[in-house]
C-alpha cells in the first residue's frame, strides 16, 4: 500500500521586546539566575499581569505577514497546570479567541508554491527554566531542581499550521522560511540553539488518496531543521511499519534524540492534562484598532517567499532559496548592482561567505563586488583572505586586487620541474595510473608560490610534464 504522511507544525517564537509579556522586567538573557524577576513574574500574592502593548503589536504584525485575519477582540485565557517552572500554576495564553487566525504561508519550491494553512498565531508567556542537579550532573538520579525565573514571562508567539504538509523536506523549508520571516520583521532572533525558536511536529500517515486523519504522534525537542527532517522521516517510517504489521499507532509525545535509533515516548496522552482553560479575569480583552493594523501592515516589506520567486527568475531556484533563507539576498542584489556577475556573486555568498560567518549587514557591497569581479584574476589565497575580512570596518578590496595570479608558464615551469624531480616515486606512481596524485603536485606548486599560481594553469602544466 502507498502511504501519505500528514504533518502539522506548532512553532514558538520568543519576541525580543524590551520587557516581558506581563511585567516590566527586562526581557532577554544575561545576569545571574533570578535577577530579571519581579513580584509579577514570580507570582507573588496579589501581583497582576498587564499585557505588553508592543508584544501585541508584534504578534499582529507576524499574523499579517502570514495573511491571517486579525481579531476585533482577542482574549487571554489561563491554562492551568502545576509545574515548578510555572509560578502562577497557570500560563497566560490564548484559547478560542486568538489575535490572529486563518492565514497561510506559501513555500516556494522548484515546482511551484506549496501553500500551508496557518490555523492561528497567538500570544502567550514562556515558562521559567528548571535546572535539575545531581552529583553525577545528569538528569537521571537528580537530587534537586533549581528554578531560574529569568526566562519566565518572555513573550511568545505560538504559530499552529494546518496538517497541510506531506513530506519532511517541505516541513523543513516551511520552518526555514518562517524563521527568516520572523527575523526580517525584527520580531525575534529565532535562534534554535538558544531556544528563541522552538517547534513541535505532529505526524500521522494514512493510505494515499484517503482524507482520513489517523492517530498522530508529537515529536518534541528538535533543535535543528535537519533533525526535524530526520525525525519526521523516521517517524513516518515507524508508523508505516506499525500499520503494515497490523498494529495501531498510540497517541504519544516522542522525545527526538538524533544520536539514538528511535524516539522514546515522553508521556502518553492517557495522562493528558485537563488545562481548565478560562478567560483570565485579571486582563481585559484586546481590541486592535483598524488604524494600528493598517500601520503594521504598511511596515511589512517584500517577504522572503516572494523574493525567492523573484530571484529564481535570475538564478537557479536552489540559489535563490539559499540566498533568501540565509538572509543574503539583499546583499546579493547590492553586489550585483555594484557590477558583479549575478551567478558568480551568488556562488561566493552561498559558499565562502556563509562559511566565513560574516554578518551581511557589516559588508560594503561595492567592495565585495570588486572582489567577486576579480575572483579569477587574483590568487586564491588573496581572495580567501579578503573575504574573511570583508566585514571589517573600513575594508577595501584594492590591496588584494593588486595581487595578480601567476599564470606565466615561463615562471611556473621551472618550479614544476623542480618538484617533479624532488618526488620521483610519486611521479612514477602517477605515470602508472594513480591519477589522484595530480592534486599532490598541484598542492606543492601552490605552496611553493605562496598560493599565487593560477591553479588551472598549474594543473595543465603538471599533467603535460608528467605524461
Amino acid at each position, binding site marked *: 500500500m502507498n502511504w501519505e504522511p500528514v504533518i502539522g507544525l506548532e512553532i514558538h517564537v520568543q519576541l525580543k521586546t524590551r520587557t516581558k509579556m506581563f511585567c516590566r522586567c527586562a526581557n532577554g538573557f544575561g545576569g545571574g539566575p533570578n535577577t530579571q524577576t519581579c513580584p509579577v513574574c514570580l507570582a*507573588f500574592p496579589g501581583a497582576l499581569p*498587564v499585557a505588553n502593548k508592543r508584544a501585541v503589536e508584534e504578534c499582529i504584525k507576524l499574523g499579517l505577514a502570514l495573511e491571517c485575519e486579525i481579531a476585533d477582540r482577542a482574549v487571554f485565557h489561563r491554562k492551568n497546570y*502545576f509545574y515548578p517552572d510555572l509560578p502562577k500554576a497557570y500560563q497566560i495564553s490564548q484559547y478560542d479567541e486568538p489575535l490572529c487566525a486563518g492565514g497561510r504561508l506559501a513555500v516556494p519550491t522548484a515546482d511551484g508554491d506549496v501553500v500551508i494553512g496557518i490555523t492561528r498565531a497567538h500570544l502567550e508567556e514562556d515558562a521559567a527554566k528548571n535546572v535539575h542537579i545531581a552529583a553525577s550532573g545528569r538528569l537521571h538520579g537528580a537530587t534537586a*531542581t533549581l528554578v531560574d525565573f529569568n526566562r519566565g514571562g518572555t513573550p511568545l508567539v505560538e504559530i499552529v499550521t494546518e496538517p497541510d504538509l506531506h513530506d519532511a523536506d517541505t516541513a523543513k523549508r516551511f520552518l526555514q522560511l518562517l524563521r527568516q520571516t520572523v527575523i526580517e520583521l525584527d520580531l525575534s532572533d529565532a535562534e534554535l540553539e538558544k531556544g528563541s525558536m522552538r517547534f513541535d511536529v505532529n505526524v500521522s500517515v494514512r493510505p494515499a488518496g484517503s482524507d482520513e486523519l489517523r492517530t498522530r504522534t508529537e515529536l518534541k525537542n528538535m533543535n535543528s531543521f535537519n533533525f526535524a527532517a530526520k525525525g519526521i522521516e523516521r517517524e513516518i517510517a515507524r508508523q508505516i511499519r506499525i500499520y503494515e504489521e497490523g498494529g495501531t499507532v498510540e497517541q504519544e509525545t516522542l522525545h527526538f534524540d538524533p544520536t539514538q535509533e528511535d524516539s522514546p515516548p515522553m508521556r502518553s496522552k492517557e495522562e493528558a492534562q485537563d488545562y*481548565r482553560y478560562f478567560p483570565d479575569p485579571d486582563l481585559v480583552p484586546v481590541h486592535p484598532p483598524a488604524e494600528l493594523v493598517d500601520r503594521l501592515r504598511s511596515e511589512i516589506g517584500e517577504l522572503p517567499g516572494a523574493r525567492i520567486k523573484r530571484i529564481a527568475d535570475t538564478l537557479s531556484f536552489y540559489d535563490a532559496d539559499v540566498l533568501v533563507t540565509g538572509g543574503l539576498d539583499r546583499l546579493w542584489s547590492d553586489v550585483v548592482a555594484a557590477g558583479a556577475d549575478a551567478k558568480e556573486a551568488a556562488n561566493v555568498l552561498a559558499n565562502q561567505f556563509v562559511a566565513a560567518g560574516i554578518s551581511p549587514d557589516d559588508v560594503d557591497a561595492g567592495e565585495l563586488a570588486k572582489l567577486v569581479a576579480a575572483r579569477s584574476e587574483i590568487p586564491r589565497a588573496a581572495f580567501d583572505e579578503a573575504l574573511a575580512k570583508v566585514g571589517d570596518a573600513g575594508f577595501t578590496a584594492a590591496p588584494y586586487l593588486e595581487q595578480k595570479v601567476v599564470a606565466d608558464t615561463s615562471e611556473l615551469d621551472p618550479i614544476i620541474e623542480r618538484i617533479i624531480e624532488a618526488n620521483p616515486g610519486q611521479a612514477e606512481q602517477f605515470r602508472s595510473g594513480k591519477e589522484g596524485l595530480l592534486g599532490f603536485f598541484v598542492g606543492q606548486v601552490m605552496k611553493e608560490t605562496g598560493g599565487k599560481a593560477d591553479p588551472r594553469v598549474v594543473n595543465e602544466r603538471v599533467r603535460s610534464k608528467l605524461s
Partner: protein
Amino acid sequence: MIDTLRLTAEEAWKLVDTKEISGGELFAAYLAAIGERDPELHAYLHVCKDPGGDGIPIAMKDVIGTKGVRTTAGSKILESYVPVFDSTVAARCKKFGLRLLGKTNTDEFAMGSSTENSAYGPSHNPWDPTRVPGGSGGGSAAAVSGGLAPWALGSDTGGSIKQPAALCGHVGLRPTYGTVSRYGVVAFASSLDQVGPVAKNVRDCAFLYSIIAGRDENDSTTVEVPEVELPTAEDLKGLRIGVPKEMNEADGIEPGVTAAVRAAIELAESLGAEVGECSLPRSVEYGVACYYLVAPAEASSNLGRYDGVRYGRRSDGADFREMLMNTRHDGFGDEPKRRIMIGTYALSSGYYDAYYGKAQRVRTMIRNEHAEVFEKFDLIVSPTSPTVAFKLGEKAGNPLAMYLNDLLTIPSCMAGLPGMNIPVGLSEGLPVGLQLIGPQFSENTLFRAGHALERAIGFDVVPERLR
C-alpha cells in the same frame, strides 16, 4: 483622654491637624485600646509599631499586601509570608500619610461569612462577643466597631465588607468593580474582588474611598473614577429609591431586620425621596448559585500559586508532586479546599459549558436585570444581611446555611455594582444594616443618601455594652 470608640477619622484628623494631639499620641491611644480589648475581640492578626507619617492610623484586612508586614490572608500556607512590595491601596494610604496599625483577621483567603474559617481563630462581635462579627472582613469590622481603629480597609467578593458592617453596626462600602486597584491584594475571585473602606460614618467612608480609588497602571481592570464628593446634604429630595420585592421579602429575613429596614425606608420618604417597588427576580433566585460557580472557579486557579516553591509554607516530599500535595494538604484549611474542588470541577473539560460557561451567561442576565431597574431608580435598598449577628459555631458546620447569609449582598456583586451598608437600628439588641445599591460609578449618590439617612437616624455606633 482619647475616646477611640467614638472618635471618627475626620475628628481624629482634625485633632492631629490642629496639633491638639500628635500623630504618635493618637497611634498610641489605639495601641492601648487594642491591648485592652483585642484579647477578647481578636480583630488583629498582627499589630504594628508606629511607622510614622503625617496622618492618622488605619487597619487593613490581612489579604491586603503590606511591604515588610506579614500578610497571611488568614491562612497557614502564608504564615511566614512577608511581602516585598506594597499593594496599590496600601501604597496610596501610605502616601497620604496614613499609619498602618495592623492587619485584621479574615476568613482564610476571604472565604467565609463569619471569620470562623480563619486559620488563626475567629474574631468576636464587639456588641456580643459570643457572636460572630460577620465575614470575611470580620477583623476590620470588629476593629472599627470596637474602637481599635478609626477606620480600616476591607475586601469584598460577595459581601465581605457589607455584611460584617451590618453585623457590627457601622458603614462599609463595596465600590464599583474596577474603581479600586486589586494589585497586591491576595486574590480570591479576581472578577469579583474589590477593596473598600470600613468606617464609623459615611463621610469617613467617602474620604477613605477618595484616597484609594482610581486607575492603577498595575491593574488592567481599573478605570478613572468621578471625583468623590464628601456628602453634606441632609435631605433626599429628587432621589428615586427602588425597593426590590424579592430582596425585602425573601425567606429567612428576620422580622426585627425587616422592621428596622422598613422604618429606614419610611424615613427616606419623609426626607424627600420618591420610593417605589421594583423587582429583581432572577438575580435573587440565581445569584448565590451563580456566585458559587464563578468564585470557586477563579479561586481554584488563583490559589494554584501556593505550591511551596517560592514563598510561604513548604512541606517535605520526595519529589515536586509530593511536596506540592503535602504543602497544599497541610497549608489550606477546609473551606479553600472545598472551593478549590468545586472550582476545579466547574472548569473541567466537559463541564465548563454546563457550569462556568452558564454561570457567565447568568451573570450577564443579572447585570441586565439590574440595569433595567436603574432606568427607573437612582438606587435600590434592602437588608444587607437577613439576620443579625449569629452565634459563633451556629452555622460553622453547615456551609450551605453560611453561603445563604450572602443571599442579599451577592447579586449586586455579580453585577459589578457598588453597595454600601449603613446601620439603621437594633433588633434584639444587635445592629441591623441597610444595603444601598446604585448603578456603576454611583458612589457619590450612595454617599449622599447614606449620609442623609445616617444623620436622620442618629444610630449610635458604639456597642451598647462598651458605652
